[in-house]
Structures are given as C-alpha cells and as structure tokens.
C-alpha cells in the first residue's frame, strides 16, 4: 500500500492487466484464519470420534462380544458385567412411550396450525412452540418426578414406583411435541396452495384436503420431523436421570424404573471412576453406541428432507 501503488503496475500509456498486481499477504493470512475457524466444527466431529474410540477400543478388547451377548449391566460391581441390552431396553422403552405421545399430539397440532387455524391463532401459537423447544430438559425432569409421578399417576391409582418409565416417557413425549409440530407444520405449509385448491375444486372437504392431499404431499418432511423426535428422545438425559431411576432392567413394565444409555453415562461420569478404569471406559463405549444411533437417525432424516426439498424447489 502507500502513495506509489498506482504507478508500479501500470504499463506506460495505458491500463495494466486487470487483477491483483501483487499478493496481499494480509488478505491471505485472514483467509487462512477464517479457514481454521471453519475447520473447528469439523475438528469437533473428529474430536468426538477420537474421544469415543480411544477409550472404547480398550473397553471392547477387554469385554469382547459379551457386550452384545450378555444380558446384565453392572459395570461398577466387584464382578462387573457389561451386557448393553438392559440399557438399550430402557432407552427404547421410554422413547417408545414418548413417541406414542408425541406423534399424535405433534402431528395433530401441526395439521391444525397449518390447515385449520386462523392466521391470528397461528401467529400466536407458532412462536410459543418455538420458545417451548428451548425449555431446558432439567425442567421437564423436575415436572416428571415431582408432579406427574406423585400427583397424576399415583393419584390415578396406577402403582408406579417413585422412579418409573411411564412418567419419564410421558413427559419426554410432551417435550418432543413442539419439535415435531414445528418441523412438520413447516413441511405442510410448504405444500403449494394449488394442490389444495385443486382438491377443493373437485369437491373435497377440509378434512379430505388435510389428510389426503396435504399430509401425503408433506410426508417426507413429516417423517423427518418424527425421526428427529425419536433421536431427541434417545439422546435425552435429564428427564430420564431424574424420573426413571438408574436400575438396569430387561423388563417391559412401564411402572418400574429403568436405566438408559444416557443415564448410565450421566451417573458414572461424576468423577468416581478414575481415567483408565473399565468403569471410565464404559462411559465412552456407551457414548459411542449413542453417537452411532443418533447419527444413523439424523442421516435418515436428512435423506427425507432432501427428498421433500427436491419436490418443491
């Protein structure tokens, strides 16, 4: 830079060639710094994989295939057993209850907001849903343990234990409703108005337009919303940690307590397990299982969303 720049590159009697006359090192350095920042998000993924694998590999070397064949999980006992099935059982039992609540409520809300609600109602309810997506899950955990279990389930005469899968699952379902409703409502609103008008023109009723035209046309977005809902449930820690207890359990009775993959990780990572011990490594092995499960679900969801975008872009 400086006063002389205009003279250096210009050919006598005319303009010089277009384009940079010399490399600007400052610009190059900035570009490199920005690149490094963008690389951090990739490094995060790599970091997660490295962290999970470096501790899991010695774990699997020691435990071997009994991880998938044994049916008992007691990693902190004197004679530890590492069968993952009780944890997977608890995870999917509670997520199953949650999804059984969240899909009908979430999709019902979404159809109502997209097809029935007046613009005024939608304008009020949609932001409420978006704020509710951000309610900390520890708050839902508090609600499940101190309200739903004693004041609803036990008051209704259901003989649930203090820690039980039913309360955790129901509350987790309510937690997932805003996510499913918000994403699938977006998908339904993206269905072109012409499709609805065509159906009305042929004499369809409002219900028929909603269920036979809009719903099928938005199905990929709706499936993606539900898969993301399941994925949120599987990865959810606080509700389950507070309301479902820590007891590994292979049963299916929702009035009992269950440990899940996430609750084991949360309860075992409190510092009592020194680095390098098998108990410490088992946290990472569980993390790996959880990571792989949610990654697969997210890839399915992305697939579905792509498909739905292809239709309307």
């Amino acid at each position, binding site marked *: 830079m400086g006063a002389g720049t205009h003279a250096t590159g210009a050919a006598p009697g005319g303009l010089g060639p277009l384009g940079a006359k010399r490399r*600007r090192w400052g*610009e190059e350095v900035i*570009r490199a710094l*920005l*690149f490094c*920042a*963008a690389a*951090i*998000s*990739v490094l*995060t*993924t790599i*970091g*997660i994989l490295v*962290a*999970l694998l470096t*501790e899991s590999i010695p774990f699997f070397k020691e435990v071997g295939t009994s991880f998938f064949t044994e049916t008992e999980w007691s990693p902190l006992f004197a004679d530890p057993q590492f069968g993952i099935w009780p944890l997977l059982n608890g995870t999917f039992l509670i997520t199953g209850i949650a999804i059984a609540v969240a899909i009908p*409520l*979430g999709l019902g809300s979404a159809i*109502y907001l997209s097809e*029935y609600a007046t613009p005024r109602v939608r304008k009020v309810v949609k932001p*409420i849903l978006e*704020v*509710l997506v*951000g*309610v*900390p*899950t*520890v*708050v839902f955990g*508090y*609600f499940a343990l*101190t309200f739903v279990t004693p004041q609803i389930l036990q008051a209704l005469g259901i003989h649930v234990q203090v820690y039980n899968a039913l309360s955790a699952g129901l509350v987790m379902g*309510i937690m997932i409703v805003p996510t499913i409703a918000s994403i699938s409502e977006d998908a339904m609103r993206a269905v*072109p108005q012409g499709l609805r008008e065509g*159906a009305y023109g*042929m*004499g369809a*009723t409002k219900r*028929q337009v909603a269920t036979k*035209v809009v719903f*099928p046309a938005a199905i990929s977005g709706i499936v993606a919303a539900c898969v993301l809902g399941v*994925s949120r449930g599987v*990865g959810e*820690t*606080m509700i389950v*940690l*507070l309301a479902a207890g820590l007891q590994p359990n292979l049963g299916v009775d929702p009035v009992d307590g269950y440990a899940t993959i996430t609750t084991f990780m*949360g309860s075992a*990572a*409190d*510092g009592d397990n020194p*680095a390098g011990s098998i108990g410490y490594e088992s946290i990472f092995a569980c*993390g790996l299982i959880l*990571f792989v499960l*949610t*990654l697969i679900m*997210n890839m399915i969801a992305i697939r579905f969303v792509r498909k739905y975008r292809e239709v*309307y*872009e």
Partner: protein
Amino acid sequence: MTPPPPPPAADVAEVVMPGTQFVRDGATRLREIGFAALLLTALGIALLTLLVLMIDVILEGASSLTPEFFTDTPSRIDPSSSGIAPAIWGTIWLMLVCAAFIIPVGVASAIYLEEYANRENRFARFVEVNIQNLAAVPSIVYGVLGLAFLVRGPLELGNVVLAGGLTLGLLVLPVVIVAGREAIRAVPPSIREGSMALGATKWQTIWKQVLPAAVPGIATGTILALSRAIGETAPLIVVGATAFATTASTGLFEQFSALPIQIFGWTADPQEAFQALAAGAIIVLMAILLSMNAIAIWLRNRYEQKW
C-alpha cells in the same frame, strides 16, 4: 410461485371417485367437525400440559424467591438458608466463556463458508453436512468430548469454568454458524460489488460493509445459542460441575456450579423441602431464558434490514 408438481395421482382419484363429497350429508359433516375437534384437542393437550408445568413450578417455587435466595450458598442440610448465588455466578462465567468462544469462531466460520469457500467446493459441502450432523449429536456426548479433551486428556484443565464454558460453546457453535451464514447471505451482492469497485480489498469489503449489515442477524443467532447453552445440564454433569458449591466462582480456573446443575441437584434430593428451592431456581432460569428470547425477537424485528 414455483410450478406445483404433479399431485400424487392415487390421492386425487380417491377424492374425486366416491362422488358423495358434493352432497354434504349429516355423517360427513359430523366427521368433519369430529376431525377438527380431534386436532384442536391435540394442540390443546400439548399447550395445557406445558401451562400446568409452568403453574406448578410457580406455585411451588414462588415462596423460595426471597432476597436471601439470590445471595445465599446452597446447603445440604438446611433448605431454609439455601440459595443460588454460586449457581448464578457459575452460569454468568460459563456464558462469558461460551460467548467469547462462539462469537469469533462462529462468525469467522460463517464468513469463510459464505464469502470464501466455493459453493461447489468439497470442503464447504462437507462442513455443511457436518454441521447438520453435529446439531443432532446428543448433548451428553459433548460432555464426553469435554471430559476426554478438556477436563482430562491433553489439556487437563480439570473441572473448571473454562472447560465447562468451552464444552457448551462447542455444543451451540452450529447455531451461530447457521445464523451467521443466513445473515451474511442476506446482504445483497451489489453492496460487495460497490465496495470492490471503489478499490476495497475483499477483507475490507467484508469488515466494513458486509459484517456491519449482518450484525443484527448474527446477534440474534448468538443470543439464541446462549439461551440454549444456559439450560444445558447433561454435558455439565459429565464435565464435573458441582451442585453444592460453597463459594461463587471468581475465575476461569475454578470449580463451578450452574443454575441447571443446581436445579438437578435439588430435584434429585430425597428431602422434599429442597424441591421448592428447585422450583424457585427454575423460575429464575426460565425468566432469564424468556428475556433472552424476547431480546432476540426484538432485535430481529427492530433491525431487520430490507434491501
């Protein structure tokens, strides 16, 4: 409007064929009303449950909200002299660390991806897919990442504010990147072209023209990211936050508590008196969260620029 794609053939046929739709008999009308009522019930149940949650928390926790509640430290034995001072200070420190990490890194990533990386560029597309996947990783897995690399492992910071704040930062970084990219993309190319035509370099253009125009969008995204980070509990449990801190953190390398951790600790306590304290702390946390969301929405509406 984009041209509507061909509608799914089978469904249209189904709508047309029965021929009864034109005559709305009583049964049809009943089904219509029944279906609408069902949908409204679904939305009603969801919103009502959440309303009950709020009311329950307020009824339980309102009595805890004394001035001493904000200045006392938590006690394991005596609920009446327990407070959230260390939790509030812990949360403030965590948010400072988190913001100091996500604002520069998130904005720089967004600038690189929007202004420098070629859209067709493999790296840019890889980063994009990567960010989508990171958003779906359960928060407790970020805790494990923090435990392995920040608390123990290569950095060995221990259970300190810096490790907790950075863990939360990594967790919400994608939110800032996505919001930053949208804000930068919304600045029209003519602004950049005008700047470049006047002789500005690429970076001068970005720094003096593009970024100032994108600030409201970036700020909104940052606040939303922080409001997500402030309620996260599971990763902090894994990196070793403590629910019974006796003193407030005063620096980056000290042990810490946080509001959600305090709520978890009190809720999990078998003594019922502590649950009123948990409810009180929930009210404080939700009040902070709702104010952050309100500020974000206000920022978006106030400064949204129409080009």
